[in-house]
């Protein structure tokens, strides 16, 4: 069996040497570790599409060097993510790695990037603490507290006195429920109960029944986007919306990629998030149009934007260092970086390497026969409220 592998190796070598003349003029490699198989596969497709689109629109030459994207499938498993990170660094000699659909996957690479001094650009995972685990993490996605605080304020302002939260039981979920509770109670509301559903098993009916029995004014929801479809179907089936409970959440539950599949029953649902495919800006219009052209049947969501912006951050950093791929310099270059993204303005906080951005309050509406999250209010430049 080793011989077979050897043959494959030779085949690969032959393919590489064919491309060698071009590669000779200094190639800078970037690793993209995405979840392409398993229950979270939808996130990987978006991320890869976003990153590829950025390269297609902006060319692959930066500071006189050719950028090459190497895509790996982490299958949603932490130790495989770590192995890919390690192999990308020692074998492919990448200048940076990126991706990370789930918090545990990002945390798994922390020791590797610290040891190797290679920047890791987080394109999705949203637990606050990740960026504190290594000085080489830079985040362009979002953090859950950042997204949860604005909706807590909004729902308190709109007359809710009591609330129940239901989240997936892992880092981001805990972050979301705690941030929601903190701000909601600051504004005079009361969280009756914090429900946590297992991450691995997307079966919510018992939790939703419990939430309904508590008769709160509002129900706050967070689950990872690929699970959102099944959660929202169960919310509707359980009749929570008819029971006069105001259902709100982070934008993960009305994810642009899946929203049309959930159906009209979520019309009017209010969420807070940093990105909507309906965001009104020339840049976003172009982004959505090109994204759909390159990926028929898909609509970009916040993960796709994360992939797009992650590549942009890397391009900009490499431009700033004038092609120097030293990891520490690249991270320094990304600190304090500020640019316009399809989502709006985005800044990398120089102190925490975490993203600072506008968070929008949106409502699900129908436009041109499709469901969209239409933004109607905004909280400007929100920092993660948990980081010190």
């Amino acid at each position, binding site marked *: 069996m*080793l011989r077979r592998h050897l043959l494959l190796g030779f085949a690969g070598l032959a393919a590489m040497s064919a491309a060698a003349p071009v590669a000779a003029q200094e190639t800078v490699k970037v690793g993209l570790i995405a979840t392409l198989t398993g229950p979270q596969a939808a996130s990987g497709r978006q991320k890869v599409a976003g990153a590829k689109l950025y390269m297609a629109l902006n060319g692959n030459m930066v500071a006189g060097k050719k950028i090459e994207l190497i895509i790996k499938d982490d299958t949603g498993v932490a130790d495989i993510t770590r192995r890919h990170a390690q192999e990308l660094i020692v074998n492919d000699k990448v200048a940076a790695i990126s991706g990370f659909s789930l918090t545990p996957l990002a945390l798994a690479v922390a020791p590797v990037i610290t040891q190797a001094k290679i920047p890791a650009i987080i394109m999705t995972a949203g*637990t606050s603490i990740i960026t504190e685990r290594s000085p080489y993490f830079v985040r362009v996605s979002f953090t859950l507290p950042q997204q949860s605080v604005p909706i807590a304020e909004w729902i308190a302002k709109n007359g809710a006195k009591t609330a129940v939260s239901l989240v997936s039981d892992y880092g981001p979920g805990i972050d979301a429920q705690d941030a929601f509770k903190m701000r909601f109670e600051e504004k005079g509301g009361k969280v009756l109960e914090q429900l946590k559903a297992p991450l691995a098993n997307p079966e919510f009916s018992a939790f939703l029944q419990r939430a309904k029995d508590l008769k709160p004014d509002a129900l706050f929801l967070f689950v990872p986007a690929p699970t959102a479809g099944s959660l929202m179907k169960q919310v509707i089936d359980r009749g929570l919306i008819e029971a006069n409970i105001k259902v709100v959440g982070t934008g993960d539950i009305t994810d642009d990629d899946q929203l049309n599949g959930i159906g009209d029953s979520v019309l009017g649902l209010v969420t807070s998030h940093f990105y909507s495919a309906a965001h009104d800006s020339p840049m976003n219009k172009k982004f959505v149009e090109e994204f759909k052209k390159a990926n028929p049947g898909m609509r970009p969501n916040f993960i796709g934007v994360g992939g797009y912006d992650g590549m942009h951050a890397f391009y900009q950093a490499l431009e700033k260092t004038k092609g120097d791929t030293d990891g520490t310099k690249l991270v320094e270059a990304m600190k304090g970086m500020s640019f316009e993204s399809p989502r709006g303005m985005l800044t990398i906080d120089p102190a925490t390497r975490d993203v600072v951005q506008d968070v929008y309050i949106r409502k699900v509406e129908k436009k041109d026969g499709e469901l969209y999250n239409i933004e109607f209010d905004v909280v400007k430049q929100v920092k993660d409220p948990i980081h010190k």
Partner: protein
Amino acid sequence: MSAIDAKPPAEAAAPPAASGAPAVSPAARLLAGSRWRWYEFAFWGLALGSYFVFPNKLMLISEILILGLLALSIDLTLGYAGLVTLGQGAFFGVGAYAAGLAAKYGAGAGPWSDPLLGLVIAAGAAGLVGFVTSFLVLRGSDLTRLMVTLGVALIVEEIVTQAKSVTGGSDGLQGVMSSNVLGMWSFDLYGKTAFWYVLIVTFVCFWFCRRLVNSPFGLSLLAIKGNPLRARAIGMPVNARLVAIYTISAAIAGLAGGLLTQTTQFASPDMVAFHRSADSLLILIFGGSGHLYGGLIGAVAFRIMQDFIGNITPQYWLFWVGLVLVLLVLFVRNGIVGLMANGWRRLTQKSHEGKNP
């Protein structure tokens, strides 16, 4: 004796009438079985040589060896004792977390942080869980057993995700610092230390298993697998034997888990997840059970397929794995090892016919 003795013990246990071989005494059989053969040297030579041939793939090779070790632990129960299990991931996970916790809280405290001691703790913890649960597994027939092992695995998984203060819950156990092996070799980014460490530990475990199955104890397991009633009738302590092998198998699975934690510096709930148990069983069926080598060879084939197909069509590789598995089960008895043994037998028979027409 040439190719005939390539027969693995499980086949050799078939009624003598089938092969037409003369009856041999058990002692002679054990002796013959414990002799190292050329293909075994070749296998371990290749494993050793892979360090020089694939210096870029050391992490992958370590991972394969760990997976192979896990499959080997299933081979002990399934291939030799006939106990079907779908819960080996539980022991793997217990070992992984035990080693992780030992490294996390023992770090800096002198000998407690040594990886080898961590392995002992991992094997001990998993062995203990195996010992306790073995009594549950012994009740009932095959299907009941399968369900019990599955149930135990689910319970362990749930404990790991719920006991957040200890295990870190769904986010995994962070901050595991692996000390240098024997205080000398630190785990490097290239995975060199990890490779040698995993290879040597795997080999020692394999050697132990090999001694075990070629002992009177191993022979008695085969008898139990063949016919538990008859084994009991001739005075064999069937239950005690099964408890023993189940415990040993759990300890080895725990050791494999400990290796994974130590070489990757974290433990996460997917180390106890159902797919670990299912994958490792799949790998064993792939490779062929009852040969000891089946697990290791199956792990190599499985990972190469995953890597190779995954690079071509990341989204559909499971389809191809499924297809190959179905074909293998339909047309080849005893997995890849069976296929290789068959091929070899045919080859040597042909050359025999060539010599003596």
